[in-house]
């Protein structure tokens, strides 16, 4: 099968066509079937058949190009590996848009963007904002178009429960939220880390400092400046950027909503 996602064409070939239906459930958000067999990136999936020798069990194998990226007896694990690889390649090679690792919600026609690495508390802040009426745009990536506006990437939220490292997936609707549809201009960029008992003391960042903070979470940062800087520039010149450690997410949600609604400069 061949498909495209954010301008990159992928092909997946399988030894057993019956697994294709399961594979399709793991394709990246926004994928579309492609008619052309010309692809930028080819995966090969060798599904384990019946064992030919007694006492042995064949593996499921997954290749990206000619490099093997998974070898396992567990087909679900192989699909998870494929999904993770596909998502990353899509984000890295995306054309005409830029993937920034960030949570995003919409509020009164503007987007609040919360860039940050894993375990920085993005999801808990996004969840708290949704519960206070914000529209869900993304829990994983801010997809910025050439104008610096955010497009929705509403994959299910990965909510970690306490110290449990395994996240559970929730649709925004399950948390009482609505999913955004239209692209939004970024009104507020929030650089924050969760720290228990931390005081919320936001300070404004200059455009250059904001650019640095966004680039630090840009998937295609190493592809070159012409890919990322023109898009990030649109964001940092038009949006307010603030930075602070934070305590509980619920405490700062009203402040963020007020800030994004206030006129800029």
């Amino acid at each position, binding site marked *: 099968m061949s498909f495209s996602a954010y301008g990159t064409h992928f092909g997946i070939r399988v030894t057993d066509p019956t697994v294709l239906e399961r594979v399709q459930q793991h394709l990246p958000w926004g994928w579309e079937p492609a008619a052309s067999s010309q692809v930028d990136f080819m995966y090969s999936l060798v599904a384990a058949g019946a064992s030919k020798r007694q006492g042995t069990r064949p593996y499921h194998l997954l290749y990206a190009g000619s490099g093997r990226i998974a070898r396992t007896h567990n087909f679900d694990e192989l699909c998870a590996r494929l999904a993770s690889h596909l998502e*990353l390649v899509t984000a890295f090679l995306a054309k005409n848009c830029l993937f920034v690792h960030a949570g995003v919600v919409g509020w009164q026609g503007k987007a609040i963007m919360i860039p940050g690495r*894993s375990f920085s508390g993005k999801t808990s802040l996004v969840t708290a904002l949704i519960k206070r009426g914000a529209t869900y745009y993304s829990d994983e990536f801010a997809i910025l178009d050439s104008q610096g506006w955010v497009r929705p990437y509403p994959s299910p939220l990965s909510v970690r429960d306490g110290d449990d490292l395994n996240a559970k997936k929730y649709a925004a609707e399950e948390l009482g939220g609505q999913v955004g549809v239209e692209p939004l201009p970024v009104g507020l960029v929030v650089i924050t880390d969760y720290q228990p008992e931390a005081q919320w003391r936001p300070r404004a960042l*200059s455009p250059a400092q904001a650019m640095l903070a966004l680039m630090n979470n840009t998937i295609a940062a190493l592809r070159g400046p012409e890919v990322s800087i023109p898009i990030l520039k649109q964001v940092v010149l038009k949006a307010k950027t603030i930075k602070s450690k934070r305590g509980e997410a619920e405490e700062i949600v009203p402040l963020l909503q007020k800030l994004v609604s206030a006129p800029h400069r």
Partner: protein
Amino acid sequence: MDYPKRLENVYVETLGDELCLYDWTGQKMHALNPTAALVWQQCDGQSTPAEIAARLQPKIEANHAEELVQYTLKQLSQAHLLAEPETPPVLTQRNLTRRELLKMAGMSLALLPVVKSIELPTALQACSANCTFSYFVNEIDQGKSCNEQCTENLITTRGELLCSADLINDDTVCRCTTVLLDPTADVCWGSDPNSNPFPAAQGRKNAR
């Protein structure tokens, strides 16, 4: 540093009075505040710090512009934003500290040069995905722990090994998962360099 010269192989983006510099070779990005940006732009390799200070005097309105330029050159040099020589500039007997400069020049804090830098993240560093590599040891040696058996069959040492005994189709196997610490590792993307979609940035000519 008699004639400081700015680094050539960088992409320059102007943001108001500030500059963002994308350094291909060092795979870093730098943010320069207005003072640092002014000084860096004047480093043409043909002007001395005193000449640069004289040119900037009307713009920065500091009583001790030359000391300020020297201090800024030191910051820029430490961030590797100046071409050779890399030794910090020395005009006075010793380099001024930030506090001494403020005291001597009586200038405001906002006038001090600030250079902030980050290392450009790889795709994996910038996102949540862990690069994990799993394998199984099927023929369990009952005399050894799962951890020992995974270690004996280790595929790569470039990561954190997590081991557990699993029951798969009534067979006990050791599940050995390596969470790779180096996200660009070949074992993660396959041994064929063409299958690695995240090559390191190549040095290029000045883009602007």
